[in-house]
């Protein structure tokens, strides 16, 4: 009996040990601590795929670098003539095609020209120094896939209505101060009794309106705004009218108008972009009420209103508008 017990014991212990001691321990679990908290080193310095990028035919260029750990990084490209800037940021270990590709656009206005540019790579939480390089743009980015509401290059555009106070001048200027191209809309005047300065209704009544995607997440509205006078006391109210019943006419009593306001922030050209999917909430992220079905339907958009308003106590106000465009999948890049 003793022998039997010993044999059974030995067999059970062996079975237990042999069957379950093999685990997947060749890797570690979770995000790498070294990538988050390890010593920072630049394993590969900043290099450029080309120093003379040509963006004219959908061209692009890539910035390469490699660090020892994940780090917040920023590449800033500055046009030495126009002052245009493009900023690319991320938190990565390796910079390359996936996260550091540039297609020639600027982060805001003005756009880049054929010019020399300074490149600055900073890793703010890791090193004090800035890593610098230069490049020279040999071909400019071409806007593609834009749905233009108004760029003022050929006057005020296809409008159905407009209004301006008697003391307000609302006109297209082509004096070289445009955000893009040559011309822009100027709304200037002193209105001491009312917020309203002037508006213009743009309408596209063709069969498919502006021809936008039906997915509001993939549609972005963009505008260039410059407050020459009245910074932070003036704003532009953009309204988007949907023809829900496809009769070619917008009925404000039964169809949706989505409204958004942009308060001026700067006396230089500023790019304002908003996803169509964000139009159904207000600044506090509360749902807004409309008179139609309450569904965001960019493919049914037939009208856009740009309405300039300013605080009547703020005195003379001058506001420029340019480049009212829709883009697909991402905000506009000048």
């Amino acid at each position, binding site marked *: *009996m003793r022998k*039997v*017990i010993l044999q*059974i*014991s030995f067999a*059970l*212990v062996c*079975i*237990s*040990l042999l*069957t*379950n*001691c093999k*685990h*997947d*321990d060749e*890797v*570690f*679990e*979770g*995000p*790498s*601590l*070294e990538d*988050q*908290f*390890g*010593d920072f080193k630049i394993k590969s310095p900043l290099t450029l795929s080309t120093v003379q990028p040509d963006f004219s035919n959908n061209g692009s260029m890539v910035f390469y670098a490699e660090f020892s750990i994940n780090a917040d990084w920023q590449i800033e490209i500055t046009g030495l003539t126009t002052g245009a800037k493009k900023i690319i940021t991320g938190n990565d270990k390796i910079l390359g095609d996936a996260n550091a590709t540039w297609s020639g656009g600027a982060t805001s206005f003005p756009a880049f020209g054929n010019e020399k540019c300074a490149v600055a790579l900073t890793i703010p939480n890791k090193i004090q120094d800035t890593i610098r390089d230069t490049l020279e743009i040999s071909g400019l980015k071409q806007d593609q896939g834009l749905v233009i509401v108004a760029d003022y290059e050929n006057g005020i555009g296809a409008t159905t209505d407009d209004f301006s106070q008697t003391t307000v001048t609302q006109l297209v200027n082509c004096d070289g101060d445009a955000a893009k191209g040559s011309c822009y809309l100027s709304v200037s005047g002193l209105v001491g009794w009312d917020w309203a300065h002037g508006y213009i209704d743009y309408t596209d009544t063709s069969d498919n309106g502006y021809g936008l995607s039906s997915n509001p997440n993939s549609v972005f509205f963009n505008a260039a705004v410059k407050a020459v006078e009245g910074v932070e006391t003036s704003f532009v109210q953009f309204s988007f009218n949907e023809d829900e019943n496809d009769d070619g006419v917008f009925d404000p009593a039964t169809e949706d108008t989505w409204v958004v306001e942009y308060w001026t922030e700067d006396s230089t050209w500023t790019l304002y972009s908003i996803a169509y999917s964000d139009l159904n909430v207000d600044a506090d992220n509360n749902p807004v009420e409309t008179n139609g079905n309450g569904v965001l339907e960019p493919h049914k958009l037939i009208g856009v209103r740009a309405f300039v308003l300013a605080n009547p106590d703020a005195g003379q106000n001058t506001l420029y508008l340019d480049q009212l465009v829709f883009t697909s999948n991402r905000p506009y890049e000048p």
Partner: protein
Amino acid sequence: MKVASKILKIGAFGAIALCLTPNFVLGQGGRKKVDFRGLGRAYYFNNKLEVPDSGDTVTAPRNNYGTTLVDLGVNVFPNENTEILGVFRISNELGGYWGGGVEFGVRQLTLKGVAADRFRYKVGDIDLKLTDYTLFNNFEDGDVNEADVFDIQRDVVDYEQFYIDNYWRMQGAQLEFGVKGNDLITDVNFNGFLTRQRASDFNTNPEQLLGGGSIQFVNQNIGFLQYNNTSIFDVTQTTGDSARYGNYVHSVSWGLEKDKKDKRFGLKGESGFSKTSYFGFVDPNRPADFDDGFMEVNGYFDLKEKNLSISAGFMDVGPDFRSPGAQSKRMDYSKTGELYSVITNEAILRPVSAFDYLSLASTNNRNISRELPEYLVWFNNSMPFGKATPNRRGFYLEATKTDSAKTGDVGLQAYMLNEIRGEGTMQKRNFLLLQFTGNLFVNKLIGWKRDVKLTSGLRMENTTRGGQSYETIDMSNLLVDLGANVEFQDDLDLLLGYKLISGVGNEFIDDRDQFNTLRNIAPTTFSVGDGIASIGARYRFTDKVHLSAVYQKYAHANLNSDLLFGINQFYILYNMEF
């Protein structure tokens, strides 16, 4: 609704009154057909929050509450093979106006019996336990041979939460039966159960069941071999969503023992594996099905005449071993403390701590958790989910000794464990856990007729990890439990207790998603402690009836977050079992 509620109450009490009539209590043959048992309790708590330096001028510092309740258990024996157990609760909040605080409910309802003189069955509320790795309700953290003065409250919590040893209270059905065998296998015992964990919400959460059981082969002279299974699974088509979760744990446990006149020794063990599946979940973070195993081998030796027991073992629990039935916790650390849930002028959510262990509150948990629950690393870092804690491998040694005159006993446990798979690094944590318990019956030493008992418990835990400076860990935890009982008059005890739990050092706190995947690891520095000092008196009317009055001071200090506060508590508790 109120009228209907009153009718229900009157009806229920009428039924109870009918049961109390003699003809109903005794059957025709004089056999008892109805038996009563139950519990009565009344308590009143007076609490006062203390935050130093006028750090809380918002919270009302005093908070009082009290309740009287009676649990009336009725055992009905319709025939010799069937028993119906119902426990009805009537509770009345002290200060309730004209019955406004009265609640009436059914606390337990169980039908059980024997079918065909062989099959034992239970239906309704049942208590289930298998093994440490398959289905096991681990004890709370923060308790090593706790003082009796703390047990007064802990007994209430255990009773209210149905914490009976290491059983889980569930609702379902259980069937057990045994078969006599031959010389090699003398007995075969079967145990099967199926319980409902969650009802479908007809939206995204399908019906969830937990089932399992064991088959045990016994040789009275050698030992046993047992197959165990616990399975948790969502039932398909109980929602419009096709996603379903499943966790299946299989194990084989065994024991070989030789019992002689002066000594007993044996070998036991368990090994098995789990398989976890998140079928049809649309979340892109959903992991592929995964599985992992575990094993434990333990040898033990008892010298009966010397009252000495020694055991040593080796355990290995895989990083991906998931067993919700054995890895759920009694405390829900994801919640905030219920009493004074928001404190200080900065409106800080009061963290769950030692105070909540002794309180009957929403932080108590009695549900099986699909996810690995949160835990406090400074309470228990080496085995937060008991022996089933995944990603642990190592040796342990346990010894207990009682002196021959029964004047005291000591116990010692030592666990030396390490991780099998690193977290965020290939470096692995090492855990050293030392636990000591001791009781001294002073009255036996000095020959006093009344009880005088000193109790002590000490738990020291050290967690380390080597490597580069950004990944090293050095964390030390300490738990001290001290207590004294002095029966200074017949049946009147003076009770003293002190508890200290502290953690000092650095650790990395895991942040896991709903699939138990480690998503983030946050480095955290600890310099934190909880202390409770308690003094009370208890009068024992009988072994099952006592009246206690206790005053205790609780203090929490977290030097990293500069959170300091205390709660002074006085309570009177009357407890009666019948």
